[in-house]
């Protein structure tokens, strides 16, 4: 039996695996990356939304573009990415057996990085195994990779970022999201993700979960009910929806089986998503030369997975003498700062499970946002991004401390200030001049920035909002303006539609509403769309 050898073998060509490969190859290592999928990039290529973070984290760039950048970088430094290459096992002495086509091949690496990511969790309810019940990630794959609508009428279970982001993408794909349900009493994901779903009219049911999926050979309906603080159903609270699809977004579990098979010491750590390897600071497992990076060592998100990947690539390179200890220390120092910046704010791993009542600025958090998915009209004024003045000016409805700052860089007129802590709430500079360029609106990954002219002199207000749906309304289209809650607030007319390469796919829709609705109208539907939704 022939064994082929590499300096470094990486399993998984997702964000962390590719990042690790790039760092290692840059330092002269002979690297191969195996991935069982037909396309590289892991989950990146189905992430059509703009990423959070700051410039160094590739903020405001859409996930699939980050994937393209990573692949180009990997290619430029000579990383071999083997696709349709299924790793069958990780055996003794760092041996990897790979199925490629109808053959198996044996490889050994002086170092191995396992970056196999995670898989979706399921939850049990009557009818959970009916066709039509699927993971939210699976639905996302269907839509965004294969161009297939997962269903027409969909209920989403789970209000974490996956549930929120996928709900929005389902809406973008033209599906009807009838409800967003979570057994927890408050929304788990970013408020801005919830708000952009809520304002389209999707109702949120917190402290609710699925009782039963109905149907004989596929889903035809679903019953949810309210649960008490012990997650027991409260009698008489049943609610029924006609749906053909139920998406489940109840967390991810690390796919750590290869590490366990190899004999790495493992632990069951609910904070990291389940069965994970016990690792050092940079992904070192209990077996010398075997590293873990990305979700396989603890569920986070793609941005931190990319940094972790780079870290393990650096550590492997130094372990095998491809870089000096000094070079390693310097590189890790940079990466640590970058990772640390991402792990701050209300949603930081260290804050998981904590009840947060105030922002870092001392402002009470929006209870409405946590329980209903939108900031209430009487809460919005207390945030520093919400100010009033004559003429067009930005209104930034960003109310939670999350690591993200593209809006600050987007405004060439320095109207928006976040400061050096990227989790700070954006504030509008009092003496700045807004030129209505729209760059802030398009750059906000949370779609939380609006440009507002509160009074155009004729008794109307003009509201410019980010719009990522098709068909794009035309100037002069009449319809209704929806409030933050998704309820109609008034009639509206499209005053302006802007699209630009610089906006990267986000269109800017300007609607005209009576001036008194300037601070409440936040979404637009044509009369036809609103009529359809009402049905």
């Amino acid at each position, binding site marked *: 039996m022939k064994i082929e050898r590499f300096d470094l073998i990486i399993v998984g060509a997702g964000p962390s695996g590719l990042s690790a490969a790039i760092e290692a190859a840059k330092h002269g290592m002979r690297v191969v990356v195996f991935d069982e999928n037909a396309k590289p990039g892991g989950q990146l290529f189905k992430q059509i939304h703009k990423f959070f973070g700051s410039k160094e984290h590739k903020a405001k760039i859409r996930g699939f573009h980050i994937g393209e950048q990573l692949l180009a970088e990997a290619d430029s430094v000579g990383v071999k990415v083997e696709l349709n290459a299924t790793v069958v*096992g990780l*055996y*003794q002495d760092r041996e990897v057996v790979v199925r490629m086509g109808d053959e198996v091949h044996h490889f050994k690496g002086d170092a191995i990085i396992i970056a196999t990511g995670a898989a979706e969790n399921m939850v049990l309810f009557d009818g959970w195994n009916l066709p039509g019940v699927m993971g939210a990630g699976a639905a996302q794959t269907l839509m965004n990779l294969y161009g297939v609508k997962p269903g027409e009428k969909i209920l989403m279970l789970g209000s974490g970022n996956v549930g929120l982001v996928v709900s929005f993408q389902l809406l973008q794909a033209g599906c009807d999201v009838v409800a967003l349900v979570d057994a927890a009493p408050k929304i788990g994901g970013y408020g801005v993700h919830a708000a952009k779903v809520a304002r389209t009219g999707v109702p949120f049911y917190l402290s609710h979960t699925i009782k039963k999926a109905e149907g004989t050979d596929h889903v035809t309906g679903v019953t949810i009910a309210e649960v008490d603080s012990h997650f027991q159903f409260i009698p008489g609270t049943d609610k029924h929806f006609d749906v053909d699809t139920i998406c489940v977004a109840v967390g991810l579990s690390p796919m750590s089986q290869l590490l366990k*098979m*190899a*004999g790495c010491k493992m632990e069951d750590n609910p904070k990291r998503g389940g069965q994970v390897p016990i690792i050092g600071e940079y992904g070192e497992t209990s077996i010398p030369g075997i590293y873990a990076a990305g979700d396989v060592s603890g569920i986070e998100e793609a941005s931190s997975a990319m940094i972790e990947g780079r870290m393990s690539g650096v550590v492997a390179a130094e372990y095998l003498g491809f870089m000096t200890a000094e070079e390693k220390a310097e590189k890790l120092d940079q990466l640590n700062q970058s990772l640390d910046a991402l792990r701050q704010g209300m949603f930081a791993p260290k804050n998981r499970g904590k009840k947060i009542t105030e922002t870092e600025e001392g402002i009470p958090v929006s209870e409405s946002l946590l329980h209903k998915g939108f900031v209430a009209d009487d809460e919005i004024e207390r945030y520093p991004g919400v100010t009033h003045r004559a003429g067009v000016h930005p209104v930034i409805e960003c109310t939670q401390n999350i690591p993200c700052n593209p809006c600050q860089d987007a405004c060439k007129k320095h109207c928006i200030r976040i400061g050096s802590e990227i989790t700070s709430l954006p504030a509008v500079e009092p003496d700045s001049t807004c030129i209505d360029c729209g760059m802030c609106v398009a750059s906000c990954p949370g779609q939380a920035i609006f440009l507002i002219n509160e009074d155009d002199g004729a008794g109307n207000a003009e509201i410019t909002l980010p719009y990522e749906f098709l068909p794009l309304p035309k100037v002069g289209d009449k319809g209704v303006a929806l409030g933050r809650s998704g309820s109609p607030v008034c009639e509206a007319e499209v005053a302006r539609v802007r699209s630009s390469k610089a906006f990267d796919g986000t269109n800017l829709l300007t609607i005209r509403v009576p001036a008194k609705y300037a601070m409440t109208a936040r979404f637009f539907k044509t009369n036809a769309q609103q009529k359809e939704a009402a049905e």
Partner: protein
Amino acid sequence: MTGDVIVIGAGIIGSASAYYLAKRGYKVIVLEKSDIIGNGGSSRNGGGVRQSGRDPRELPIAMYGINNLWPTLSEELGYDVEYHKKGNLRLGKTEKHLETLKKLADKASACGLDVRMIGPKEVKEINPYLSDEVIGASWCPTDGHANPLKATLAYYMAARRLGVTYITGESVQEIRKVHGRARIVVTNHDTYEGEYIVLAAGYESRRIAGTVGIDIPMVRKLIECLVTEAEPKMFEQMLGTAEADFYGHQTNHGSFVIGGSTGFELYKKDNGTPVNYSDTVPCICRGIIRYIPRLKDAKIVRAWAGWSDNMSDGVPVIDTVSEVPGLVLACGFTGHGFGIAPGVGTVVSQLVAGEEPVCDISGLKYDRFYAKDVAKK
């Protein structure tokens, strides 16, 4: 904790012994080092319940089990062990293979077993799925197979129902004598006391027996097995080959449970996890496809490895120890203990009870090992 009998090892031998002891009314405590019942070779074997191919010294206990225990075992234990008595084909492709098979068959026939050589036509009649390259086989119609994943657990569950106490995660450090009798078992957590101590701890038995001055000459050998997805029902016999390319059967569920070897089994490393060697499953697959071409598209879902306790002369020790009264040995099964486990459990319960065993185990004594010049005499 005190009982009448302390059984060390919760594999199929220990659990069968505990079951038959409890049935006789003994209060039994079973100590298991692993957190899992039946985690050694008991669950990791091809499931053979056969007499053919066995050493004449262990043939009586094998035959006793097949004639008296296996046929009613599922009813006896209250759990389906999937026993099928549909024969064992040991296949050959060359004249040399047939010679090997004939030697084994002749030895067994001499002990009164119905095993004979058959030609290619009869082989095909028994199993039409075999390759045309098979030129003959030994055929033992009373052999069969059971489900190794279920049989050990069935003994365990039945023993537990009879009141046997099982303690897992208990690693036995030593056996201690009291007034010249083996009586106390010291573990990493506790001590246990019993009138009798049954040592059925596989390879670990060697170390533990050493604490009361008894050495059982055995080495560890890696056993590797695989299981396929469910396939349509094909055949019910147990299969093996002259060169031991593979051995195994199709379970009730439809999956094939098949074991095999590469030839390096005695020389495999231990990294602390019972993982397969990377070249074993491919090797077994090649063996299977050469004999059962139809299975080439069957998907393998899992492969296992586990350590077996291999005796220097290939048969186990099932015996009381005159120097250590109170100690009963049941170990060294050399990779073929599964099929004889019901017989062994029965005999162990008799040894504890001081009865004459129901079958001849005189060839399985603990003191049969002598240096080669002495042995020759």
